C-alpha cells in the first residue's frame, strides 16, 4: 500500500488475482489495438476472409475519427488501463481505484457506438475489433470487484463518524 494514501480495501483480504487479471486483459487489449494501429499506419489492408469482414471495418470512413485512427485511440486507452492496473498490483489507493473505474466505464461506453457501427451501418464484423470490445467489457465488469470494498468502507467510515458525533 502506498504510504499516506487511503486504502480502498481497508483490512479486508486483498483479491490479488483481480489486478493481475485486469493487467493481463488490458495488455491483451493493448496488443490487439497496437497491431491494428501498425497495420493502419503501414498502409496494410487485411486480406478478405471468407467468414469475417475486417477489411470492411478497417477501411471504412469510421476507422478514423477527427483525424485519429480508432485503433490508435484504443491502443493509448488500453495502455493507460494497463499502467493503472500495474499500479493496482502495488497499491489499492482510493484515487487509483476510482481512476481505473472511471476509465473502464468510459471504455465500456465507447463499446456501444463501435459495436452498433459494425452491426447496423457497416453490416460487417472485424474479429480484432470484437476482441477489444469483449476485453473492454470484461475489464469494466471485473473493475466492480475493486469497487465493492471501497463502498462498504466508505459506509463504515460514515457510520463511525456519526457514532463519534453522537457520543460527543
Amino acid at each position: 500500500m502506498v504510504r499516506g494514501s487511503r486504502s480502498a480495501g481497508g483490512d479486508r483480504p486483498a483479491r490479488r488475482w483481480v489486478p493481475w487479471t485486469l493487467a493481463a486483459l488490458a495488455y491483451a487489449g493493448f496488443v490487439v489495438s497496437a497491431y491494428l494501429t501498425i497495420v493502419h499506419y503501414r498502409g496494410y489492408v487485411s486480406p478478405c476472409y471468407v467468414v469475417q469482414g475486417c477489411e470492411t471495418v478497417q477501411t471504412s470512413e469510421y476507422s478514423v475519427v477527427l483525424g485519429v485512427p480508432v485503433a490508435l485511440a484504443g491502443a493509448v486507452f488500453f495502455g493507460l488501463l494497463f499502467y493503472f492496473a500495474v499500479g493496482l498490483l502495488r497499491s489499492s489507493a482510493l484515487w487509483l481505484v476510482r481512476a481505473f473505474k472511471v476509465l473502464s466505464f468510459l471504455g465500456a461506453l465507447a463499446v456501444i457506438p463501435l459495436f452498433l457501427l459494425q452491426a447496423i451501418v457497416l453490416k460487417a464484423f472485424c474479429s480484432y475489433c470484437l476482441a477489444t470490445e469483449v476485453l473492454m467489457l470484461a475489464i469494466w465488469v471485473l473493475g466492480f470487484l475493486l469497487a465493492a470494498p471501497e463502498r462498504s468502507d466508505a459506509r463504515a467510515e460514515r457510520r463511525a463518524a456519526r457514532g463519534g458525533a453522537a457520543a460527543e
Partner: protein
Amino acid sequence: MSGSGAQRAARASADGGGAFVARVAPWAGATVLVVMAVALLYIFTGAAETESFAAPPVASEDISHGPTEPELTIIEYSDFQCPFCAEYAGWLTQLREKYGERVRFVFRNYPLADHQWALFAAQAAYAAHLQGKFWEMHDLLFERQDEWASSSDPRPIFDSYAESLGMDIEQFHADADAQSTVDFINQQALEGKEAGVTHTPWLVIGGESVLPRSLEQFEKAIEERL
C-alpha cells in the same frame, strides 16, 4: 561514526535501495512489455507469409496474361470487391508490364459471400473477357471499386465501363447474365476452396502461396523464383 552506526546506515541504505527497486520494477516491467509488443508487432506485420500450396493446374479456359510456356506462373484468386485485391491490382499492373514476357499471370475468381456485388462484378469481367477486354475491365473495376461497391445497383455502372471500352453492350449483357458465366465463376471459386483458399487475394507463385505486403515484397517473391 561507530561501527554499529555505520552498519545501521548501510542497512538503511540497502533497505532504501530495495524499496526503490520494488517501487520501480513493476513500471519498468510494464514498459518493457509494451515496447516489446510494439517492436514484435512491427516486425511481424511487415513479413510476407509463405507456405507450399497445390493449386489446380492452369487450364486452357483460365484467364491469363503472358507466355503459354512461362518461366514462372502466378495464380491469383481474387474478389473484385475486396479492398486488398484492389491494392494488389495496382501492383499487378506494374508487374505485368515488367515481367509480362517471362511470367504468366493467371486470374481466378473467388467472390466472397459477404461482398454484395462481387459476383456481379466477376460476371461483368468474364463478359469483358469474352470480348477480349478482360484486363481492361479488371483494371477499371478495381480502380473504381469505391464507385460501384457502395452503389445500390452497380449494373448501370458496369455498362458505362463496357461502353468506355468500346464493347458490344447487348452482347455484354447476354454474356454477363448467362448461366455458363455464373457456372464458370462458381467452379473456379469451388476449386479454390477445395484447394485451401481461405481469403483474397490468394497468390500462388511457383507452387507456394505468398502474401506480399508491398510491391517490393511482391517483386522480391518473383525474382527469387525466376
